[in-house]
């Protein structure tokens, strides 16, 4: 239907220099394709390179080798196709909620009246239409993250990158946020690359889960989540998949630890 390209990682490797002068291999030879409209979760323990991968997709980091493409366009800078939603929202406290959502449109030179209408529509979509003239500090953490998601969606990005967006939200609200995000995604089928270390969150949201393991950061396994949406967190298939993922991560964890001790 839409002719969006999705996003493709082509043999991406990222080395970071360390203080001891050695290169730390944060991401090793990752090749990954996210189709248009697909929701992919990167899951793994800290240090597995999932956030580095997202930073590269967002244009914030350059790969040491390999490349990331949206369609035929190589990502070399932020602001070239993917928009990142950050864990700590990054809302501007001096702007009202609506002005925050208008920001990306303002950058793109959208005239004020249209900007306003689109911002209000996005706020309605995340259920915050009534809070348009509030300031961010008057909202709860979950509401702030909804504003930040509305801000990203307002510019209709080719790819939405989400870096543990609900990590700072309390557990009860996190479940609600996941449900809302899924609803939003079902309405528009946007391409989403979502980083989390919460296995349940990934199973609830993803079309495909990419398991990553550290030392060096690489893809251990990819799992298509085929059961129907909205998913039931207590269901048997949910539990079965969860055990399988935890087992994979655990095995990979012991394996790399053994390697490390040698």
């Amino acid at each position: 239907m839409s002719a969006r390209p999705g996003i493709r990682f082509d043999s991406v490797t990222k080395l970071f220099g360390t203080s001891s002068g050695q290169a730390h291999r944060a991401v090793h030879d990752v090749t990954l394709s996210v189709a248009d409209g697909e929701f992919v979760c990167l899951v793994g323990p800290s240090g597995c390179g999932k956030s580095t991968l997202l930073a590269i997709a967002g244009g914030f980091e350059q790969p040491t080798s390999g490349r990331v493409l949206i369609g035929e366009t190589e990502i070399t800078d932020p602001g070239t196709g993917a928009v990142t939603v950050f864990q700590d929202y990054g809302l501007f406290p001096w702007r009202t909620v609506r002005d925050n959502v208008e920001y990306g449109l303002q950058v793109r030179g959208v005239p004020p009246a249209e900007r306003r209408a689109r911002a209000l529509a996005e706020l309605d979509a995340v259920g915050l239409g009534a809070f348009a003239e509030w300031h961010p500090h008057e909202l709860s953490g979950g509401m702030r993250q909804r504003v930040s998601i509305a801000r990203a969606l307002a510019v209709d990005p080719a790819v939405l990158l989400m870096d543990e967006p609900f990590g700072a939200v309390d557990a009860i609200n996190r479940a609600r946020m996941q449900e809302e995000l899924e609803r939003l995604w079902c309405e528009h089928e946007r391409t989403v690359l979502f980083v989390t270390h919460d296995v349940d969150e990934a199973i609830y949201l993803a079309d495909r889960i990419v398991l990553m393991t550290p030392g060096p950061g690489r893809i251990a396994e990819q799992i298509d989540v085929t059961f129907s949406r909205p998913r039931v967190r207590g269901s048997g298939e949910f539990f079965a998949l969860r055990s399988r993922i935890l087992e994979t991560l655990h095995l990979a964890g012991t394996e790399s630890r053994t390697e490390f001790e040698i």
Partner: protein
Amino acid sequence: MTRTARILLPLAATALLVTAWHVAATRVGSTLLFPPPGSVVLGAVETAAGGRLFGHIVASLQRFAIGYLGGIAIGVPLGLLLGLSVHARSAFDPIIQVLRPISPIAWFPLFTLWFGIGELPAIAIVFTAAVYPVILTTTSAVREVDPLYLKVARTFGDSRAGTVARIILPASLPGIAVGLRIAVGTSWVFIVAGEMLGVTNGLGYLIIDARNSLRTDLVLVAIVIIGALGLGIDRALRLAEARVRRHWGGAA
């Protein structure tokens, strides 16, 4: 502390000071050497009656406003530049650090040579006292802008100029407001010194003129007024600063 205590304590302390002053002045017994509070009040009434006192106050406030606003007009853009550019900072920061600890009074001889006798040297002294704190606080306010805001600007593809105007400037405004308040305090101190030479009105002139005619009561009138105005200006800026902070979401 209760509300009444907050009002009563400073009043009581002031009453105690004035009483002690009165007792001490009575003991000294010379209105010239140590004028008691009563004669200072009479002196104030006397100068105020002819409208002269009001004229002095207006003259001082005008010079101060020009020098201080000039300091902001130069200091804020310069601070922005130093905050934004590592190169500008490394080039100019040492110069500013050397110039900053020099008392503005030290420049007075040169200022009178350059600007002549009159208004301008006094204004230049206030300017000199205001400009450094404004530069330094603006620079650090710009450097302390939350890096996350800048990442948001980048992910939405904002240009450099757009980021400065839409993000960096508003984000550093609370920090700049602090600098403006600090500068008002440091530069108000120097209006008196600036007016002690070459001008024929203003509170600094009033002090020198009163001394020349041996009116120490009027010296104290000027001193009390300078203190009261300084307090008033500081309070006004504190209010403005608090407003900025509230509007900016409690420095969220």
